[in-house]
């Protein structure tokens, strides 16, 4: 592997972004999309080459610095690349999905005045994401981490006139900053403990840190590794939208659909998952931290899935589904099944990008209406979208044979096999999650493509399949959504592929356990899946959705009334948003106003500063009386003074 190849992979999208961003008007729309697509295509081809090279064993893992960012004291901060199987896999997924989204955007943003700007942003995003995954140190990781956040901010607020969009992008950035706060504390703790931010140098020192503690509150000693792991994970909670820092992701749907697919489903939101997997040597040292990770994931997987059932906006259903699936990945991390998390990350990237882009195709046809209650029966107007969306749904719900089945089933099995504290609860959550996933997914399919056509006549007249630039990416994503699972499960989970990149203590290695006792090839795994509980739960979800949303829609209405409190709870998203808005944002603003009005203006400025000015004024007013200009006043004072001094002297 040569440094030049890697530099081309990372910098080519940046060059595309710069050209489209600064010279977009000169090179025009076509010029802009050609430049950015070409630049991402170069990255994609080279990334896949690197991945293949690593698989074949032609290439060795790579770790080199590009340049020295800064030397301060005894610490050297570098910018550099660490390319191993995990990185190469991420690079390939990121650039492939990005390429698909670039092509798709030609169709989706066709009439948008900000066409060039959009291409510039998504190429910039690809660069930032590559810097994040290719990094060999925490500094560059944090750079990529925040840079993808910046582009996400710019893209959620892409339609900057829309009040909801510019609220959502600020919210996304700020909620992520809360996570980054934890992340930065974690990085600072790493710096303090290891004296370096270089991954390998940190990992090499880990054995000496087993019993180290840190005292946050006087007299209380916490395990240092638990502290670092949880701090870093708080960063992941922001980026990968885990409760309670998930609130920004549904709102991010205000951005154009291509970026919902690219950033808010396939790549950026999985950065947290990737980061934890990358830091597996650190997380493996703390069972407490992993239990925490697992429970957060389980909570998110289950409860966010439930919210998906009551959403009517097609993109929001998929957004809640993304939250839930990220929860699955987090659970996998929490039970030390890092490879399973990465596996699900990959399959999910394909089928979730597919679902989002499919939803986007529907939205184009519906003239940018996203409410499913105005859809229905679209299958006959847009067959390609219909078929590919079905494929994506089957993959998402984990129907045996589809990619999602393999990755989700492994997570469920791994959770079942885990003996970590709390894994019982997590197991129930991920199991029930399967039912919920099937329920909201098929609900979406039925409300959109089947049943009565509920749109107005004007819309109906113009319904048609999207152009090929839109459907081609759907097809290209549908293929891996079907096949990638059985193709890669063996090498990824039970082979040597990720062994070097991910570290699991033998005692925690639930995936190896499954490999030893339960896994006998992808085919039999799929067949075996047909007899297992998750499959029946998925079927039950499918059956319920079919009955309610295809046959008897009134049931849904009745259920709403019967379970009014639960329904309201779900519609209000458990009140996270209103709580944050009222108490956190509102509270801080109140506090700010209080400090400004009372402390800064009244106390410091009013009382102390202007008060002392007034005091000086008063004192001088008083003394002014002495300088009356009348000689007899001065004479009197002198006489009195002389008498006083002489008097005290004599006495």
């Amino acid at each position: 592997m040569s440094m030049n190849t890697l530099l081309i992979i990372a910098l080519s999208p940046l060059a595309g972004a710069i050209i489209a961003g600064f010279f977009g008007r000169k090179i025009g729309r076509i010029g802009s999309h050609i430049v950015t697509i070409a630049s991402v295509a170069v990255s994609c081809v080279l990334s896949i080459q690197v991945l293949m090279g690593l698989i074949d064993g032609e290439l060795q893992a790579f770790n080199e610095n590009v340049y020295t960012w800064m030397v301060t004291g005894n610490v050297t901060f570098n910018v550099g690349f660490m390319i191993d199987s995990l990185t190469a896999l991420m690079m390939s997924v990121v650039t492939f999905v990005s390429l698909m989204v670039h092509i798709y955007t030609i169709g989706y943003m066709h009439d948008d005045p900000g066409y060039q700007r959009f291409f510039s942003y998504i190429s910039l995003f690809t660069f930032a994401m590559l810097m994040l995954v290719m990094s060999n140190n925490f500094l560059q990781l944090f750079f990529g981490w925040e840079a993808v956040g910046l582009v996400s901010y710019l893209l959620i607020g892409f339609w900057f006139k829309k009040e909801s969009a510019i609220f959502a992008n600020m919210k996304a950035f700020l909620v992520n900053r809360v996570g980054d706060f934890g992340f930065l504390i974690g990085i600072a703790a790493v710096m303090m403990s290891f004296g370096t931010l270089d991954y390998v140098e940190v990992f090499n020192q880990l054995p000496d840190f087993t019993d180290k503690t840190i005292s946050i509150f006087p007299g209380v000693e916490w395990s240092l590794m638990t502290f670092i792991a949880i701090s870093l994970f708080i960063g992941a909670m922001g980026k990968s939208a885990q409760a309670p820092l998930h609130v920004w992701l549904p709102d991010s749907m205000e951005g154009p659909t291509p970026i919902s697919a690219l950033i808010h489903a396939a790549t950026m939101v999985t950065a947290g998952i990737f980061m934890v997997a990358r830091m597996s040597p650190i997380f493996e040292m703390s069972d407490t931290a992993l239990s925490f990770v697992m429970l957060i994931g389980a909570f998110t997987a289950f409860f966010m899935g439930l919210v998906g059932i009551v959403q009517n906006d097609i993109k929001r259903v998929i957004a809640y589904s993304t939250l839930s699936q990220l929860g699955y990945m987090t659970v996998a991390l929490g039970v030390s099944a890092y490879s399973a998390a990465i596996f699900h990350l990959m399959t999910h990237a394909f089928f979730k990008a597919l679902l989002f882009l499919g939803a986007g195709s529907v939205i184009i046809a519906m003239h940018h209406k996203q409410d499913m209650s105005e859809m229905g029966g679209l299958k006959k107007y847009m067959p390609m979208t219909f078929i590919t969306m079905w494929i994506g749904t089957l993959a998402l719900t984990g129907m045996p044979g589809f990619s999602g089945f393999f990755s989700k089933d492994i997570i469920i099995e791994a959770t079942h096999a885990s003996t970590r504290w709390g894994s019982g609860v997590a197991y129930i959550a991920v199991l029930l999650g399967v039912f919920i996933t099937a329920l909201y997914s098929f609900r979406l399919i039925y409300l959109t493509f089947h049943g009565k056509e509920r749109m107005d006549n004007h819309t109906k007249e113009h319904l048609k399949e999207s152009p090929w630039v839109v459907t081609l990416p759907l097809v290209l994503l549908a293929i891996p959504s079907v096949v990638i699972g059985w193709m890669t499960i063996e090498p990824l989970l039970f082979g040597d592929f990720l062994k070097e990149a991910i570290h699991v203590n033998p005692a925690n290695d639930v995936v190896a356990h499954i490999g030893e006792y339960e896994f006998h090839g992808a085919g039999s795994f799929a067949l075996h899946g047909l007899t297992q509980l998750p499959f029946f739960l998925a079927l039950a979800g499918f059956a319920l959705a079919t009955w309610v949303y295809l046959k008897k829609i009134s049931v849904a209405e009745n259920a709403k009334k019967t379970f009014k409190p639960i329904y309201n709870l779900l519609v209000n998203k458990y009140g996270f948003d209103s709580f944050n808005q009222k108490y956190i944002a509102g509270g801080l603003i109140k506090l700010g106003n209080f400090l400004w009005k009372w402390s800064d203006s009244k106390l410091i400025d009013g009382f102390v500063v202007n008060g002392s000015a007034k005091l000086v004024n008063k004192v001088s007013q008083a003394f002014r009386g002495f300088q009356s200009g009348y000689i007899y006043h001065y004479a009197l004072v002198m006489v009195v003074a002389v008498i006083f001094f002489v008097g005290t002297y004599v006495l």
Partner: protein
Amino acid sequence: MNSWSLLSLLIWLPIIAAFAILALGPNRAGLARLLAMLTAVLTLLLSIPLWQNFDTTTAAMQFVEKVAWIPSLNINYHLGVDGIAMPLIVLTTFITVLTVLSAWKVITKNVHQFMAAFLMLEAFMIGVFCAQDAMLFYIFFEAMLIPMFLIIGIWGGPNRVYATIKFFIYTFFGSVFMLIALIYLYMKGGSFAIADMAELTLSLKEQTWIFFAFFLAFAVKIPMFPVHTWLPDAHVEAPTAGSVILAAIMLKIGGYGFLRFSLPITPDASSDLAGIVIALSLIAIVYIGLIAMVQKDMKKLIAYSSISHMGFVTLGIFIAFALIGKSADTNMALEGAMVQMVSHGFISAALFLCVGVLYDRMHTRKISSYGGVINTMPIFGAFFVFFAMSNAGLPGTSGFVGEFMIILSSFQASFWFAFLAALTLIFGAAYSLWMVKRVVFGEVKSESVAQLTDITKRESFILAVLALAVLGLGLYPEPLIDVMRVSVEHLIQQISVTKV
């Protein structure tokens, strides 16, 4: 030593030019502008060899000039720079060029006086950074107030009289105590040379008194909580160019003073009282951050944000003492403080210039008067978002580097220091982005926003230069660190040895 007195040239060239411009009289505004620009550019060009010929391997003063001035009191015209002063001088000459350019069209009243005041200000600030004699330093330090006083008082806003008097009394109040301390040190050691003062043996009691005297002067200047309230008023009333110089350079003189006087002269007292300064710095970061969030005037918001960012400078400087106690690496903290000063020089300048651009067009700084500016000023909007992000400390911009270094160092001193300092990640983003949301994004808010015209070539040139500086320092801070490394190490040695 250089055969041609570079530092003197840097100081006296703008002063002579200022008199020449004054002599032009009020009727030749165009020529006054041109001459001021030429002088500023020439000064900038002259400061480049300062950087190029700077020897980064020694902590000794370089480009030294020393001439007896008042021999009876042993006061010398003594100039020199080290790695701490040099970057700040280059920052001064760089920012001055941009501010002269920014005032090109805006100032129409008494142009010759304005430009002359500006060049005087530049000269005095350069003088402050290279004075090696405490008396000379003091004179420049005080002289600086006069042109600034005039700039706000003559070309300022409606409430400029209150603001200038507040500004003047505040800073003057602080520096009087410094003068007393300097005289005391002279009486004790018989020399006004700063280097000699650093060598003096002082009891802890003496050091404590002197420390507080210096502290008052520099804490007001930088400014620190709770002596910060002059800054928002001064900024609001100052013309754009005045705000830029005030935020970008003058505040740094406070930080520079701590590094040049407080630390080397009173190391034991500094160490003893570091806890208080750290506490005040953390209050500045959190409390001022919250206040910045609720500001309704853009300039006030940026002024409060400046105070909050300067909190990092004082935190970085004084956290060093906590680290020496733990025998941890102190370089990062002090170098972080320096980087933060330079970076804030770029970012605050850019933000004030952005507000100036809007103010010149709409004659209001109220956030609520704006909304949807990006619809009519897309290029400006892009710059504004960029600088707001830098202000929020986005990695890749200079705003990140110093804060990152200081948060990392603070953690080594105490988890809670880092915890409070890192809150800026949230608050800094909140006030910066909320302002962006209300000013830049959204539907066109009013008829006057609809009639805005995008920035001119001149304006975008200024902002583009600053943007490049912000990115350059953010992506590759090593050259700046390299310049100051040896001097910072020397300073650490000075403060590690007790004087008692």
